[in-house]
């Protein structure tokens, strides 16, 4: 559990982060989103004390970060930035080994961890361990950057625009990879982005910042259904709001009793996907199957539309 309490940062007369408080549950992704200059990065950098807060504090599992020596604190928090900052004179393996080496892990343990992480990221250790960063593609560099941040099993992973340097196709894949790995490792992540799509795609909770202030903090659906200010409404966009909502909701949320003809849709899929299937095959309803494949009910166009309106 990460608690951010009344964090404020001022440079002279300008307030960059103004009295921001929120909590991050363990094993979840919190996305901080906002326009550039909103203070997102500064907020993130105050968590690992790259920037010292003017006032307020950050608690990790109840422990005030100010009571931990800076470098020790950063060894416990992974950090990924746009451009990744891989050490160009070190190999992939040496890059990943950075924090474990600082922590004094033994050689064997470091080697095992490097292999484990490269495997996790589908980079063949035999091929990639000895490569230098300039020999990697952008997507590979990004993966190595995240692997390096995860190397010492940090309690928290901070990511500042980690996908900003990738082209759209690779970016989508990188986001899915991050989600998969986060679910697998149960990692706690705070991620900063200016991309609303990315925020909705990745965030368990979204914190919207504007002009140094935290405007709204909550689950993605709440931003759509109850935007706190006109700014949030503008940021999320009103035109495709129902579709966004459907892409956040599961099929089981609009489950109706009864039977239907056709190929079943998965209960764990999104309503957005279900609606898309219904429209494409020209049916009014389709059966819904659970994880084991047995039909548990049906989903209908009218049901989905009703869900979209009611939310």
């Amino acid at each position, binding site marked *: 559990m990460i608690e951010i309490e009344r964090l404020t940062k001022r440079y002279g007369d300008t307030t960059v982060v103004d009295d921001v408080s929120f909590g991050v549950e363990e094993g979840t992704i919190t996305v901080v989103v906002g326009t550039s200059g909103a203070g997102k990065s500064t907020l993130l950098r105050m968590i*690992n004390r*790259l920037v010292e807060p003017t006032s307020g504090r950050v608690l990790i599992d109840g422990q005030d970060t100010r009571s931990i020596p*800076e*470098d*020790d*604190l*950063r*060894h416990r928090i992974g*950090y990924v*930035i*746009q*451009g*990744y*900052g*891989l*050490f*160009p*004179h070190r190999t992939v393996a040496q890059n990943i080994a*950075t*924090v474990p080496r*600082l922590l004094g892990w033994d050689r064997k343990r470091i080697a095992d961890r490097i292999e484990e992480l490269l495997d996790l990221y589908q980079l063949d250790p035999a091929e990639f361990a000895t490569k*230098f960063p*300039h020999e990697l593609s952008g997507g590979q560099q990004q993966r190595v*950057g995240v692997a*390096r*941040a995860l190397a010492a099993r940090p309690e928290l992973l*901070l990511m500042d625009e980690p996908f900003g340097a990738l082209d759209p196709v690779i970016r989508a894949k990188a986001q899915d990879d991050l989600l998969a790995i986060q679910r697998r490792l149960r990692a706690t992540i705070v991620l900063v982005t200016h991309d609303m799509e990315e925020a909705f795609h990745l965030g368990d909770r979204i914190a919207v910042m504007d002009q140094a202030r935290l405007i709204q903090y909550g689950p993605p659906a709440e931003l759509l259904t109850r935007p706190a200010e006109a700014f949030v409404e503008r940021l999320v966009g009103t035109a495709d709001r129902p579709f966004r909502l459907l892409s956040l909701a599961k099929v089981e949320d609009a489950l109706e009793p009864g039977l239907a003809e056709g190929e079943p849709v998965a209960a764990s899929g999104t309503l957005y996907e279900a609606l898309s299937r219904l429209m494409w095959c020209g049916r009014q309803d389709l059966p819904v199957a659970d994880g084991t494949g047995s039909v548990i009910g049906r989903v209908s166009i009218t049901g989905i539309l009703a869900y979209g309106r009611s939310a």
Partner: protein
Amino acid sequence: MASPHWTLSPDRLGSMVAVLIGIALYAAPFVTYRANRIAAGAARSIFEALPPTTAFVLVGAALSVAIVAIFVRRSIVRLAAASLGLVVIAPCVGLSAGFVTPAGNTFARVSPALGFWLLGLAFSLLVADALTRLRLGPWARLGALSIAAAAMALLLFSGAWDGLSILKEYATRADSFWSEARRHVLLAIGSLAAAVAVGLPLGVLCHRAPRLRAAILQVLNVIQTIPSIALFGILMVPLGYLAAFPLAAALGIHGIGAAPAFVALFLYSLLPVVANTVVGLDHVPATVVDAARGMGLSNRQRLFDVELPLALPVILAGIRIVLVQNLGLATVAALIGGGGFGTFVFQGIGQTAIDLVLLGAIPTVALSFAAAVILDAAIELSNGTSQ
């Protein structure tokens, strides 16, 4: 290979080399003969300076190089031909000394003249051009330098050149030559080492404390603009004052001599070392520094594990500038009794003995050249690992 090795359209540099060779063979004296070391010289052409067969071999070899230079494009062939040319003319000029000097005359002097120098220049140009075109890696360049040095050593120690005037100057000063050589290298490299020891930390300080940067670089800039003789003069005052203390005197510090020379060279060395350290550190990518901080590298770890290794090529470039500059400047130290190769240069000027001047000048040039090649290779090697 797409381009033909033989061509009828002449190569531009090759043509120039051929013209040089032509002038050297037909219009310029090969050696100069003088009755004694400061007498006026008399020119001797190739056929006057060498036995007929040797002269024919030399002319034949030189013409062959000229033909290769004009018509052959392949770098490796040009390199081989030019190297062969150097291998022929170098012993020939030694041989001519014995041929021209009347038997038993120990006062007469023979030194290489325009023709020899032109041939040497022409062949060296061709070698340098071919080596550039071959795009040798750093190790290969170091290898080429070693071969050249070994060939030079062979010529010097085999006695092939013992008849030449410059080596006669050397023979009468063999002891002092090596002690001055040692002094020269110590002055140049010692002051460089001191400058690195002081300049590197100073550069790091400038990088981390931007407020100090302007002040420190300004002072070093001003020092750099003081002419060397003037700086030697300025330093004599405080060092002369220091010499009054027994401890300083015991350390060998005097107003004149090696101490002011060392200090002056040290001061000149500081700017390139400090400035390049600052620039090198500035050019470490900001994301790399940010990532290093974010992962919890301490200031020290960040400096030694990340920043300095990445700045190394630029820092080495500064050291290269300083070393080449110091090897040259150390010559001037002789003016204030600092010793070094300059001793021979200034003695030679005083005696109007040009060979003595060359005895000081040629090793200086050779040292600077070798230092430049070695450090360029080092820079490239350090760059290779930090790309």
